[in-house]
């Protein structure tokens, strides 16, 4: 992995922002089309975009589908995430696109006045709401764990299939992403100056140190979990279309 990372660093500065734009755009378009036009269930499998399943009130306009009532939570969580903020400020806003001197000269090419920059003091001050999206995302993650366990119970009884492994991989990566969040790190111990002065301080400190280790890989968890979401949903679409069958690895009973 370090060889890939060092090779990546040697690429021209514009490769990284371009790759971020491409991946996030493809993911956005794919997931929007998936939730707007298609169903998300196949036997015991529920697409991660469709969990938790909520009933759609009758007064909702026709273009709103049930997953949209939930997906604003993970979408908001990622949009206000400290890592994705870096990614989209660089890739979409070119603010700056990269750190190199000549890249910085292209900072916000549409702005006539460099001094008009407000950073996260104007509209983007709203990103401070990140912790509330975290709280809501933890509930969604709990539902996705439930869905992962539900995949073990197929039509023929308890079984472990390729699909189940994919669903578990996805929720492990999503959990790593959610619980490596900077706001979570603040919540569990970053907001304290003195662990030895508070009750349960040692547990707080250990939790904080564990989350800090996870947090050092927050960008990686962000991307891995995005790709695993995509892979899980595509797998379900292929099952629905009959293009593949879910390969059972172990089948208990019956």
């Amino acid at each position, binding site marked *: 992995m370090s060889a890939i990372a060092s090779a990546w660093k040697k690429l021209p500065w514009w490769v990284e922002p371009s790759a971020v734009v491409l991946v996030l755009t493809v993911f956005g378009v794919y997931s929007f089309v998936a939730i707007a036009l298609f169903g998300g269930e196949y036997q015991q499998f529920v697409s991660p975009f469709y969990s938790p399943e909520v009933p759609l009130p009758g007064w909702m306009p026709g273009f709103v589908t049930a997953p949209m009532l939930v997906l604003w939570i993970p979408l908001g969580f990622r949009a206000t995430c*400290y890592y994705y*903020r*870096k990614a989209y*400020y*660089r890739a979409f806003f070119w*603010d*700056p696109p990269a*750190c*190199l*001197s*000549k890249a*910085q*000269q292209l*900072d916000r090419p549409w702005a006539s006045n*460099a*001094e008009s*920059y*407000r*950073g*996260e*003091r104007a509209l*983007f*001050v709203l990103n*401070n*709401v*990140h*912790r509330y999206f975290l709280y809501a995302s933890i509930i969604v993650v709990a539902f996705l764990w439930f869905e992962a366990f539900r995949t073990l119970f197929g039509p023929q009884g308890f079984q472990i299939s390729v699909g189940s492994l994919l669903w578990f991989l996805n929720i492990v990566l999503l959990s790593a992403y959610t619980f490596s969040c*900077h*706001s979570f*790190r*603040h919540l569990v111990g*970053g*907001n*304290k*100056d*003195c*662990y*030895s*002065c*508070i009750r349960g*301080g*040692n547990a707080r*400190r250990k939790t904080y140190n564990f989350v800090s280790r996870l*947090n*050092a890989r*927050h960008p990686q968890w962000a991307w891995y979990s995005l790709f695993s979401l995509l892979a899980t949903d595509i797998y379900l679409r292929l099952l629905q279309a009959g293009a593949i069958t879910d390969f059972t690895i172990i089948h208990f009973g019956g």
Partner: protein
Amino acid sequence: MTEGNGNNPGNVTSRAHSPVPNEDLGKSGKTAKLKIFRGDSEGGQEVEYEIPLVEGMVVLDAVLAIQAEQAGDLAVRWNCKAAHCGSCSAEINGRPKLLCKTRVEEYDGEEIHVHPMRAFPVIKDLVSDVSWNYEVSKAIKPFHSSEQAPFTMYEEDVERLYEPKKCIECFMCQDVCHVLRTHHKHAEFAGPRFFVRNQWLEMHPMDEEDRLGDLKEDNGLGFCNITKCCTEVCPVDIKITDNSIIPLKERVASEFYDPAKWLMRKIRGNGSSRNGN
């Protein structure tokens, strides 16, 4: 006084901190070409120099060799030549670097362009005027404790303080930060270096001062859009964004932007959520 130059190896304990001695220049038969900015605050241009390459030489060695042999009036600031003092910060091929920690061989096959730090006024050639940083530093509320030092502190309470203490004040993070470099917010924004300092003060278990209001207003923490260039260039590997700026942003969010905490404070009737412990 002991002669401390590299030409008298018998009189020095280590030659690592000295310029490359003359007898080593030219041994490899190779040369290095450097294009160095020559000028001042009024402007200037790159001037090309060619010097004999010595295996393992750093860019500072090359610059000092040019200064000694070809351009006696070339201005460069340096001190320890061991990546400890933070004096020789400059920009090599558009990226902030310590001249003493960057080997010429890293740029094998590339042109080497050496410029002064651009977020600050250029005094001459490779020397920028970084005194603005000292003014910012003076304005930060210093450490304050009602207890008398020496303090009894536990390892688990101070382990987070080692990282910000590694800072050598090279100001390369300030130089690469687009808020200063491109948007010129020097009057409203303290810069990454001083968020590192604030984090050390704020997380110190014995410190009782509250700096969150200053961080939000005077130090302009909200201008930072966490694009992490400061972390990329730090020569002592401080994770500035993740371990200093974001933890401070979270504390500022708790104090000023969290509606539930604001409501709790209203109900309890105390003005600040700061607990310090």
